[in-house]
């Protein structure tokens, strides 16, 4: 009887963690322009240091946090909605975040937020506008998916998808009333990018993603049961309504925060959970951390490729995730397909 034990938990997580550390290191050293590591570490005011510590490291860290967060959210949403096609983009929150960000960019493009009273510099307020959009859409979707005091998976899915299409229409409308260059800028923003120099932003995302992930991880066991259906889970002793509420709120907050700074980066949240399920199994107590780490690794490399492939131009990272992730996923599905319930 092969079941999840502490040895497997430890082995998988430690292996992935080591891989992630190596990835962060490698991706910080790789890019469209070369750096002299000795000079970068020797003179912190040299361009090499600036490339390493300002232009690359923050975005590699951001990539790790967002890749991990997206993958973890994908795992729990697929479990909660009992739908293998569920992904973070489906929840409505992402649409709300995009709308918030776009409104921020159109109406107050030049607002800056002082961090810690200006001591830590100032950051663009667009992410905050996006996050406010995410929070309000979360409340809206939640309210509309509530039936008899319970979140209804089906309604949640439909509400999210319909809300997102509605928001997409609004965004395209806004996009067609602003001027040509602003419209181009909005489109680039919507396509998603991990470009950042602000450690403040990175820290904000890390805090959200870490807290949200731990919250979701604590529901791992119950998520296993929830995949068997609401009734079965109840009969096995799970407070289904409470788990669903927690998962929705935790993942919405994470997705909202992530989309606010990076736009919609697709595919990680859909694919990584499936890949990891095929590799480490479906037990969410392991699947969640394993997917988190794998998502982090995957997005770091995807972003590095995005910076390098068409250098000096940077590709939208979503193109890279889908272009390399898609075929790999199909290959895995072909080889391990029997593991998928029909």
């Amino acid at each position, binding site marked *: 009887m092969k079941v999840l034990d502490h040895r497997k938990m430890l082995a998988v997580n430690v292996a992935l963690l080591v891989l992630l550390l190596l990835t962060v290191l490698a991706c910080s050293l790789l890019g469209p322009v070369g750096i002299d590591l000795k000079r970068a570490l020797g003179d912190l005011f040299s*361009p090499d240091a*600036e490339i390493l510590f300002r232009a690359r490291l923050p975005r590699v860290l951001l990539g790790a946090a967002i890749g991990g967060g997206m993958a973890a959210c994908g795992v729990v949403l697929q479990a909660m909605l009992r739908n293998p096609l569920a992904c973070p983009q489906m929840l409505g929150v992402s649409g709300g975040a995009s709308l918030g960000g776009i409104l921020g960019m159109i109406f107050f493009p030049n607002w800056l937020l002082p961090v810690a009273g200006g001591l830590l510099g100032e950051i663009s307020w667009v992410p905050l506008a996006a996050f406010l959009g995410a929070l309000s859409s979360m409340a809206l979707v939640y309210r509309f998916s509530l039936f008899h005091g319970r979140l209804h998976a089906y309604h949640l899915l439909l509400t999210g998808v319909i809300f997102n299409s509605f928001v997409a229409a609004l965004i395209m409308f806004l996009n067609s009333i602003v001027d040509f260059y602003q419209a181009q800028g909005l489109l680039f923003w919507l396509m998603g990018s991990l470009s950042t120099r602000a450690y403040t932003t990175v820290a904000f995302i890390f805090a959200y993603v870490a807290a949200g992930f731990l919250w979701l991880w604590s529901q791992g066991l119950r998520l296993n049961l929830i995949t068997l259906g609401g009734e079965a889970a109840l009969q096995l002793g799970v407070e289904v309504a409470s788990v669903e509420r927690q998962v929705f709120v935790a993942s919405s907050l994470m997705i909202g925060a992530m989309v606010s700074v990076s736009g919609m980066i697709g595919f990680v949240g859909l694919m990584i959970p499936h890949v990891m399920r095929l590799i480490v199994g479906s037990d969410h107590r392991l699947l969640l951390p394993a997917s988190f780490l794998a998502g982090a690794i995957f997005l770091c490399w995807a972003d590095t490729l995005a*910076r390098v492939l068409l250098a000096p131009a940077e590709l939208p990272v979503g193109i890279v995730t889908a272009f390399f992730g898609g075929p790999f996923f199909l290959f895995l599905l072909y080889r391990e397909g029997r593991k998928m319930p029909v």
Partner: protein
Amino acid sequence: MKPRQRLFVFAASFLLLASARLDADAPPRKIVSLAPSVTETIFALGYGDRLVGVTTYCDYPPEAKMIAKIGDFMNPSLEAVAAKRPDLVIGVVGATDVVKAREMERLGLKVVLLPLQNLDDILKSVRALGGMIGDPGAGKTLAEKIRVQVDGVKNRVRLAPRRKVLLIVGYQPVIAAGGKNFIDELITLAGGANIAGGAAQPWLNLPDEYIVAKAPEVIIEAGMGSEREKANKRWSDLASVPAVRDGRIYPYPSDKILRPGPRFGEALGELARLIHPECFAGKRGGC
């Protein structure tokens, strides 16, 4: 658009130009413009009153805003154009949708696409437009005026060292003017060297590390409506970049330099002043 395709459209538009000349005995009374630069040129020629339709992006000169809109630059409405019953529809090679242009022709409209890829194109198109409207003299005068402005700037910066320039139109993420863009030529004429000029794309998303590595001496934020102080703050993280260190980040509020039209010379002058202020110090001076 691929070069061959562009060549084809280019040739086709000149054939159309030629045919337009043949029946020049009846100059067009009603013109629809499918691009802001075309609208500007027609006004500059003194025939703005013949415009019966322009795009939603056509906001210069201010009178252009009063003219009926026929859709946006990328997406003009066939119906709206046809409803104006224009004698002539003018678009831009490489920007106006070729399929749409052909459909307009099928509706019996005379469509001309002007090439506006670089200064040469602009000068040729200005002259051609004058001819089409039935006032070749106005075309020639305007082209000459632009050329004189350009030569003036050229003379001023002739001996100045080339400064590395980054021109962006978006900040989140950074969208820069690449090669294959008339702005690249504008920067060169103004005595600069576009750090993204080697890129194959006219506009591209440029990663921060590339900007640090290429160390631009001047950064121009065009058409973003930014303020000087804010722009400086935004870049303050990249202190090793000369433009940041020396505080040479210039918001350029107008989209004058983004339009390949009659204000080319004027825009070039302003751009050169930002890149090489020292060459414009004296009344007649230069570098």
